[in-house]
Each structure stands twice: as structure tokens, then as C-alpha cells.
């Protein structure tokens, strides 16, 4: 047990809670609680999107994937920043305009109105949204316990318990009220931390050219843009083939952009004008951070190959520790706390959004819609909080077992379910006037079933050549088109109030 580390971590958490307490004085109702009072400024909006996409998995999983897969995995660092731009530009511009008029709190409020089905759409999106958020939360817990166990020199399960207690205290103390401000601080900490640590990791591995020469010596494909097209791949890490990349593009750019904890951020912007420059700002900012983290993963591989550092041997996902171990090697005294703060910030900024997402699904979409139509604001908030506590306990149990070989696989599983269920209804809802209620319900349920069956086949029968979610995505497109064309057109007044049509910027705003 390392007491200096524990003290620094304690100070960091107290600081976050202090910001939370200061910001929560501005919050008055449960609606404010969710949309942060619809008052996000330009940089607050841009950093909120970046901070909610950037999770603990992003820092650890990205460098872990780079460690094992080399340059062909760099596409992840192009598609993920692109998803930040995508959610702001393709979804956000129009959703924000509709939401300003209609007062939406969450994405399911939009779907329920656009597809004139309060119960069906809310029920289905709650099932998919809670499932995704739980998978994601497990990934965050794994990330937090990896860092804590390495930093504090305690066992993985002890670290998991400490991590869960930290998250619980943080949530119950009202950390959620202050999500916007805390996210801003966390987003800045992640960016500054990565900019400060990564160049030194690359430098001490011998510089970029040396890193690439060593990589090319291990496997010439490590410096190519993809692995040769063959199924099954010639090695476990060589799955990033041209065919796989197609499914990977949809998975990350569309799937991640549709995650509830990401897309709900665009509803809280203060002004429509922000959607002009925010896509470019989010893309460039995140691209730089992600490239640095990924190249740090390459550099840590070289440091291991040359015997400068050693990864832990008694864990199932050793390569996910690459960033942490490399940083600790270079700055033995200051990197520990610094890396812990970067990863904790990344974990917390995503975890609080996830908790809020689960809470609002259970409170508003399940409890109020199905069990108690006349529920008061206070009782909905209470139900939301109980749901949050339950989800922490459930994910703790799920994370207790050994983590998968790569953290990235776990997170992509969650995003994959997103791709198969939410992408088609949101895109068709915003841009296709012929998309009907029946089409949306069919597309969500068939997409979910398709993804689950393909996932089961991939893990338990035989590996598939593209990401399993792609099959569900194709099914959900087919279901949306066929079922919509076979059923009656949506009411025109619904289409007009929800600004449906083939344009991005609403006419009234131009």
C-alpha cells in the first residue's frame, strides 16, 4: 500500500466534490439535473462531448490496442474523433433546434415524439440503453481497478472495491449535479495530462523513427495501414483487415455517436451558433490526444521489447497496462499520481454520464411511463437514485471476474449494441419523412436481436470476419426501410414539428 499515492488521490476527489458542491447551488429541478440547465457555452459543449466519449478505456484500451496491433489500429484514432464531429454536426444541429422548441431532456424524448409512440419506443430504447450503459460501466470499473491496483500496489479485487466506493460516494454526494463543470475540469486534465506525458514516453523509447523500425522488425504489417484480408487472420492481433475496417468505421463513427451518454450532451447547448465551429474543434482536439495515446502504446511495446520495462504477468489483459507502466518508468515519482488523475478523470467523466443515463431511463421512461403516470418529481428522482445504486452493485459483480483479453473488446461490445439499435431510428427519424413508428420499432428490436445472435455466434461458435454488430446494423436498416414502406405514412404535423427532412439546418434558423 502506497500512502503518498492514496493522499494525492484523496485530494483529487475532494477537489472534484468541492466543484460539485459549488455548481450544484445553481440546480433547481430534476430537469436541470439532467440537462445542466440548457446553458452550456461553446467550450463547455465541445469539452463535454470529448469528455463523455473519452473514458478510462480510451486511455488504457487505446494504448493497449496499439501495443498489440501496431499502426493498422490507428483507424480507431480517426473514427473516434470523427464520431465526436458526427454527433455534433449530423445529430446535434437539428436535435438542438427541435429540443429548444419542444424541451427534450433525453434522446428518447425525441424518439417517442418523432415516432408517435410513447410507451413502445421508450420501453425499447430503455432496454437497449440500460444494457449498453451496464456493459460500459463494467469497462470503467475494470479501468479504475487496473490503475488503482498498479498505483497503490494492492490486489485487483481490493482496487475494484475501493473504486466502487469512490464512485458511489461521488455519485451520492451529488457529483452528478455538477456534471458540466466537473466534465470541463476533467476534459482539461485529460488533455493536459496526455500532452504532458505522451511526448516523453515516445522520446524515451528512442523517438518515433526508432519505434517504427523496431515495430517493423517484429511484424512488417505493424507499420502498414491494415492487415492482409484473410479469415481467420494469421494472428490474434491481425483482425484489422480491410473488410473488418468497414464494420469498424460504422461501429465507432455511428455507434459511439449514438450512445445516450454522448448524444444527450447536444441537447444542453446554450446557442444554435455553437454548432458551426464545434465539430471541427472537437475533431482536431480529440485527434491530437488520441494519436498521442496510441503512439505511446507503440512506444511502450518497443520499451518492453528492449527490456526497459515489464508488464504485469499475473493479469489477463497485460497490454492494457502499457501506458501506465511506461509513464511510471519515466517519471517514477510524479507520473503515478498524474496518470491516476488522467485515468480517474476519464473514468469519472464517462461514469457519471452513464449513471445519469441509467437513472433517467429507469425513473422517467420505465417507472413514470409504465408504473406510475402521475409520479411526482421527487419520487422520480428517488427511483433514479435507487436505480443508480443497484447498477453500481450489479456492475461490480460483473467486473469481479477476470477482464477480457483487451478492454477494447468489452467497450466495442457496448458500442456495437448501440450501432444495431439506435443509429437507424435516429438517422431515419431526422432525415427520412417516410420512416414510421412500426419501422422504428421493427428496426430497434430486430437490430438488437441480430446483434445479440451474431455476438453469441462470434464468441461461442466461430469468429466472424467483421464486427458482430454489423449484422445487426444491416438487419435494422432493412427492417426500417421495408416495414416503413409497408405501413401508413407518419402524421404530417408530427413530421413538421420534429423538422423531419433531408436538411441539416432547420429553415427557421437560416
Amino acid at each position, binding site marked *: 500500500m502506497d500512502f503518498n499515492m492514496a493522499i494525492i488521490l484523496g485530494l483529487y476527489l475532494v477537489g472534484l466534490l468541492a466543484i460539485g458542491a459549488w455548481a450544484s447551488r445553481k440546480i433547481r429541478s430534476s430537469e436541470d439535473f439532467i440537462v445542466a440547465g440548457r446553458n452550456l457555452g461553446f467550450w463547455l459543449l465541445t469539452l463535454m462531448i470529448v469528455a463523455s466519449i473519452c473514458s478510462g478505456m480510451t486511455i488504457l484500451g487505446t494504448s493497449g490496442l496499439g501495443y498489440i496491433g501496431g*499502426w493498422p489500429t*490507428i483507424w480507431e484514432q*480517426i473514427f473516434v*474523433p*470523427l464520431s465526436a*464531429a458526427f454527433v455534433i*454536426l449530423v445529430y446535434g444541429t437539428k436535435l438542438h433546434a427541435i429540443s429548444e422548441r419542444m424541451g427534450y431532456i433525453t434522446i428518447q424524448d425525441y424518439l417517442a415524439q418523432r415516432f408517435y409512440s410513447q410507451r413502445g419506443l421508450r420501453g425499447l430504447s430503455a432496454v437497449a440503453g440500460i444494457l449498453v450503459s451496464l456493459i460500459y460501466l463494467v469497462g470503467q470499473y475494470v479501468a479504475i481497478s487496473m490503475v488503482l491496483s498498479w498505483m497503490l500496489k494492492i490486489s485487483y479485487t481490493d482496487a475494484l472495491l475501493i473504486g466502487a466506493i469512490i464512485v458511489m460516494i461521488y455519485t451520492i454526494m451529488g457529483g452528478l449535479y455538477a456534471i458540466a463543470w466537473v466534465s470541463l475540469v476533467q476534459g482539461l486534465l485529460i488533455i493536459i495530462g496526455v500532452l504532458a506525458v505522451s511526448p516523453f514516453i515516445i522520446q524515451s523509447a528512442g523517438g*518515433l*523513427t*526508432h*519505434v*517504427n*523500425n523496431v515495430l*517493423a522488425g517484429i511484424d512488417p504489417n505493424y*507499420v*502498414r*495501414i491494415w492487415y492482409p484480408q484473410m479469415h481467420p487472420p494469421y494472428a490474434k492481433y491481425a483482425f484489422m483487415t480491410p473488410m473488418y475496417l468497414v464494420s469498424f468505421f460504422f461501429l465507432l463513427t455511428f455507434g459511439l455517436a449514438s450512445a445516450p451518454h454522448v448524444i444527450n450532451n447536444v441537447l444542453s447547448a446554450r446557442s444554435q451558433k455553437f454548432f*458551426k*465551429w464545434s*465539430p*471541427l474543434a472537437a*475533431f*482536431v482536439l480529440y*485527434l491530437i490526444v488520441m494519436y498521442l495515446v496510441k503512439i505511446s502504446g507503440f512506444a511502450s511495446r518497443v520499451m518492453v521489447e528492449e527490456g526497459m520495462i515489464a508488464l504485469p504477468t499475473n493479469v489477463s489483459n497485460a497490454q492494457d497496462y502499457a501506458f501506465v507502466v511506461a509513464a511510471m518508468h519515466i517519471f517514477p515519482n510524479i507520473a503515478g499520481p498524474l496518470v491516476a488523475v488522467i485515468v480517474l478523470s476519464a473514468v469519472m467523466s464517462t461514469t457519471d454520464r452513464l449513471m445519469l443515463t441509467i437513472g433517467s431511463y429507469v425513473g422517467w421512461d420505465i417507472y413514470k411511463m409504465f408504473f406510475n403516470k402521475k409520479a411526482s418529481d421527487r419520487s422520480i428522482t428517488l427511483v433514479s437514485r435507487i436505480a443508480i445504486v443497484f447498477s453500481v452493485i450489479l456492475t461490480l459483480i460483473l467486473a469481479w471476474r477476470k477482464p477480457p483479453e483487451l478492454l477494447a473488446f468489452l467497450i466495442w461490445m457496448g458500442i456495437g449494441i448501440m450501432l444495431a439499435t439506435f443509429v437507424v431510428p435516429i438517422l431515419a427519424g431526422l432525415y427520412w419523412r417516410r420512416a414510421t413508428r412500426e419501422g422504428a420499432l421493427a428496426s430497434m428490436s430486430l437490430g438488437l436481436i441480430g446483434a445479440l445472435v451474431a455476438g453469441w455466434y462470434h464468441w461461442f461458435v466461430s469468429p466472424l470476419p467483421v464486427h458482430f454488430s454489423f449484422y445487426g446494423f444491416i438487419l435494422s436498416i432493412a427492417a426500417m426501410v421495408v416495414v416503413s414502406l409497408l405501413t401508413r405514412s407518419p402524421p404530417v404535423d408530427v413530421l413538421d414539428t420534429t423538422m423531419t427532412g433531408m436538411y441539416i*439546418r432547420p429553415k427557421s434558423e*437560416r
Partner: protein
Amino acid sequence: MFGLPTETLIAVTMVPGIIALVLLGWALRWS
């Protein structure tokens, strides 16, 4: 350069570059 094959270097710089240009175009068309 940087120990990378030319096609890799082009891909990892030009693809983000083109995306950034498209997003810049979006901002400039907004009036």
C-alpha cells in the same frame, strides 16, 4: 519518413486532414 512506409504516412495524415477540411467547409458555409 519516421520509419513508416509512404502509403502509411499518407493515410494517417491525409485522412484526418481531409476530414478536418470538410468540417472547416461546414463552418465556412454556415452564414
